[in-house]
């Protein structure tokens, strides 16, 4: 991995179209400005993790998998306000 030291206000260029500005350096975080072509997605890494996790979660079906999760749950979580009813 290429490592570079930059001061506040300095810029890094990636190729011809991507520009990264070190906008502000705080005590424990930096604020970074990114200029990139609109079609190029720019994401915080954790958002990518959540996207992938949501895609995986959407594949669980209400059949055997849920039943097996239920069997393992030994929780006394109190139920909350909203309920649904299955119509026959």
């Amino acid at each position, binding site marked *: 991995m290429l490592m570079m030291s930059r001061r506040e206000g300095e810029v890094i260029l990636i190729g011809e179209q991507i520009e990264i500005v070190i906008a502000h350096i705080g005590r424990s975080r930096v604020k970074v400005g990114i200029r990139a072509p609109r079609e190029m997605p720019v994401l*915080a890494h*954790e*958002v990518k*993790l*959540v*996207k*992938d*996790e*949501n*895609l*995986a*979660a*959407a*594949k*669980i*079906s*209400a*059949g055997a*998998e*849920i039943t097996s*999760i*239920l069997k*393992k*749950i030994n*929780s006394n*979580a109190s*139920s*909350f*306000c*909203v*309920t*649904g*009813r*299955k*119509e026959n």
Partner: protein
Amino acid sequence: MPLAQTINFGTISYHPDAAICFPKGLPAFEERRNFVVLQFQDSAPLTFIQSLETPDLCFVAMPVLAIEPQYRLEVSREDLEELGLASDRQPRMGVEVLCLTIVSLGESGPTANLLAPVVVNIRNRKAVQAVAGESGYSHQHALFAQEVVAC
């Protein structure tokens, strides 16, 4: 009571108060805005976040506090504004907001996404999936880490 078509549960009726709206969708499902939160007696505390637009889209979830009673909520200022809540403090779980964690099935069993809880403003039913980048929570928190495999 309004009805919804679902793949998992057939046709369901739900209380209008159980309908929630994600104004920005969820990561990877940005176009899906309207869902209903369902809990059934025989499967509580599992909670289902069922799309009202896509019958086969349903997230399995659980109340965050059922998994992590000491959970520290970390909702960004931007998300708090989206929810219509005061943006200078964290909302109270169970009082101002409902907090659910989406469950998925990893190779070694079910996991809960504590990195990004679904946060619902109880008053206006607006919802966000709040990505808590600095919280230190895992997106794949093992639900049954204490389970011992018999040999």
